[in-house]
């Protein structure tokens, strides 16, 4: 007759009390499962949404903050000064971030539209809708407007995010190397479609220009002497890639899209080659201005520096769940008015209904747990009063007080296990129903605060943030009772029993066995 055998006999042979306690634990268990299930489901939905979002962090200038700063200025000179020295991304900081082991790939990249020179872009399929377009130059003279038909992606590093993610796959030849970047080699990787369109092969060369038809016309008209070939960038094809991206012919603005908007017309080149070429072209243009206005002063270093600024610095991390920590770890080191943007605002906004629900669910859990401790303590303490003789007898037989407490604990824990096990079944059903109902109510209430600001979303082609919607997140909200949750409930139940047994234990420790002899006389 050890403590366990006695406990087992007590609970099986005193069924009324046992059943009452099982019901108590069952009810407590249901509420706890409900609360934990709902808040865990919310947490899961957030994690799943995070995982669906690409693990990208963008290093940006915080213009909002800077404009706010300018707004505080009153002095005219100070304001002008502030506009001239607007914040820039710090190249060294950008490079330092790439050494973080969480970074899988990164783009330090400039994107510009360009024009093909004596070759064809990949057609979009909307050409017949668009007639010839005209633009008017200064003085009202009209001329044929030529649409830019290519897009240059000039990256500073060979491991582009698109390659790491498999959006781009080099199918022929190779990607440009770090060596070629360092030496500003005039090399390019083009799409399979662009290659096929023109019969290009690896090793061929082609020419492009970033100078628009109006500027070219101005240059010609100016009478300035220059080498026309200097306006073109000659590139050697080192590789051909396939892209998974394509335009959507059903898109609203498809009819008006320019050929450069087709992902098939994207040309990948080293950023250094781009900077060098752009600086040359710019210097010719500035010479023209200088010829026309003798007062015009140019600082060529500044012009070069201008082309060295990336339009986008984006890091792809190994794991979407690391994004928040990554931002937290590095934000301190950045220059003023530059930030790491992880699209957190969108995520936070979308999480709001789930967070509210979790918050209340957790409060319910705490209230229930505290009440459970109080109720179980009281019930145990009260029944202990009726068991004093029994305990006295056990003590008179030489059973230690600790073993008496152990028996009490085993009795309660067995009952709690049974109650909670029953609750796991019903609680998961209940949690699903109640969770859905609360969620419906919550999103309805939250919709009132829903702002229509699209500012969080970036629709341009270089957007690396995944567009997620409230529906995306809520569709992932599903209350299920996972093994981890079940474990959590049993651990919590054990904790409740342990705390609830504290007061009765003190009562037992203070019990004097002589008392049972005295009280019988």
């Amino acid at each position, binding site marked *: *007759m*050890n403590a366990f055998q*006695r406990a087992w*006999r*007590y609970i099986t*042979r*005193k069924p009324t009390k046992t059943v009452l306690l099982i019901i108590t634990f069952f009810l407590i268990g249901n509420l706890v499962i409900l609360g934990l299930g709902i808040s865990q489901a919310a947490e899961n939905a957030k994690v799943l949404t995070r995982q669906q979002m690409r693990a990208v962090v963008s290093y940006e200038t915080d213009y909002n903050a800077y404009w706010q700063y300018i707004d505080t200025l009153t002095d005219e000179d100070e304001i002008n000064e502030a506009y001239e020295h607007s914040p820039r991304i710090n190249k060294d900081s950008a490079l330092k971030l790439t050494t973080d082991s969480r970074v899988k790939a990164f783009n330090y990249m400039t994107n510009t539209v360009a024009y093909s020179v004596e070759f064809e872009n990949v057609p979009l399929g909307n050409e017949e809708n668009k007639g010839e377009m005209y633009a008017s130059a200064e003085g009202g003279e009209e001329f044929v407007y030529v649409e830019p038909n290519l897009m240059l992606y000039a990256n500073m590093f060979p491991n582009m995010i698109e390659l790491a993610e498999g959006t781009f796959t080099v199918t022929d030849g190779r990607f440009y190397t770090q060596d070629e970047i360092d030496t500003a080699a005039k090399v390019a990787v083009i799409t399979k479609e662009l290659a096929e369109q023109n019969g290009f092969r690896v090793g061929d060369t082609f020419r492009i220009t970033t100078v628009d038809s109006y500027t070219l016309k101005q240059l010609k008209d100016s009478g300035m002497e220059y080498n026309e070939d200097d306006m073109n960038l000659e590139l050697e094809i080192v590789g051909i890639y396939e892209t998974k991206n394509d335009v959507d012919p059903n898109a609203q603005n498809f009819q008006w899209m320019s050929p450069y908007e087709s992902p098939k017309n994207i040309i990948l080149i080293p950023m250094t080659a781009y900077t060098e070429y752009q600086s040359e072209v710019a210097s010719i243009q500035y010479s023209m201005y200088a010829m026309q206005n003798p007062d015009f002063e140019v600082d060529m270093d500044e012009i070069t520096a201008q082309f060295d600024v990336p339009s986008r610095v984006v890091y792809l991390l190994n794991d979407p769940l690391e994004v928040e920590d990554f931002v937290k770890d590095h934000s301190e080191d950045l220059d003023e008015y530059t930030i790491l943007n992880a699209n957190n605002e969108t995520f936070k906004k979308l999480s709001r209904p789930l967070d509210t629900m979790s918050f209340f669910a957790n409060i319910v859990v705490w209230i229930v747990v505290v009440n459970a401790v109080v109720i179980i303590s009281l019930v145990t303490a009260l029944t202990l009063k009726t068991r004093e*003789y*029994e305990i*006295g*007898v*056990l*003590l*008179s*037989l*030489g*059973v*230690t007080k600790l073993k008496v407490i152990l028996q009490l604990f085993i009795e309660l824990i067995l009952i709690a296990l049974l109650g909670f096990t029953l609750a796991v079944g019903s609680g998961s059903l209940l949690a699903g129903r109640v969770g859905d109902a609360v969620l419906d109510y919550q999103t309805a209430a939250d919709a009132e605060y829903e702002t229509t600001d699209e500012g969080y979303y970036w629709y341009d082609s270089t957007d690396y943030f995944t567009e997620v919607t409230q529906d995306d997140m809520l569709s992932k909200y599903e209350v299920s009772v996972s093994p981890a949750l079940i474990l959590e409930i049993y651990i919590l139940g054990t904790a409740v029993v342990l705390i609830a047994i504290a007061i009765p234990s003190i009562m037992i420790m203070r019990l*004097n*066995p*002589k008392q*049972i*002899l*005295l009280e*019988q*006389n």
Partner: protein
Amino acid sequence: MSTILKLENINYGYIDGGYRREILKNLSYEFEEGTFYTILGPSGSGKTTLLSIMAGLDKQESGTVYYDGEDIAKMGLTKYRRNKVGVVFQSYNLISYLTGLENVLLAMTETDNKLPPNHKELAYAVLRMVGIVESKADRMISRLSGGEQQRIAIARAIAGNEDLIFADEPTGNLDSETEQEIIRLFQMLADRFGKTIIVVTHSNEVSRFSDRRILLKNGVLNDIR
């Protein structure tokens, strides 16, 4: 015959309404092995108090209790209760959610004394000895008469092979016929098994059949001859 239990200068008192009341005053006594004692005395004289001190259920304020020459406080009261002592209560105090047999088995699991390996068999034998047949031994306590319950309580007190049996008014709730049977049981335990039986009673009937009668009065014990 040798001394099994020796009380030396036992003092016990308590404070009641600001006054200190002495119950036991420098009480000394020696109990011999295999003897059936009854302790008599007026109500409130401290019999129950003395019994709980001797049984290791309470601590005296000063003085020493020796079991077989060993200070029971040094031995440890829990260990003393577990291995040397059996207690029988006025209202039997069997554990209600166990059968008679299980109550006896409980005492056998707790003791450190050497017992034959088959506890169940031994428990039935002990129960048979006190007059409880197997079919009754397997019943829940609530379905037994007072006399039967007290027999089981006695069986529980001796099942762990304890030498000392204490009983506080063990026949207080029983009719005279049953009382007779319980007395005979005590006699047998002392005579045949060499147990030392110390019974507190105010029943002359019980004390008449004991080997030695002692009176507790004014805080001390005196033999009645």
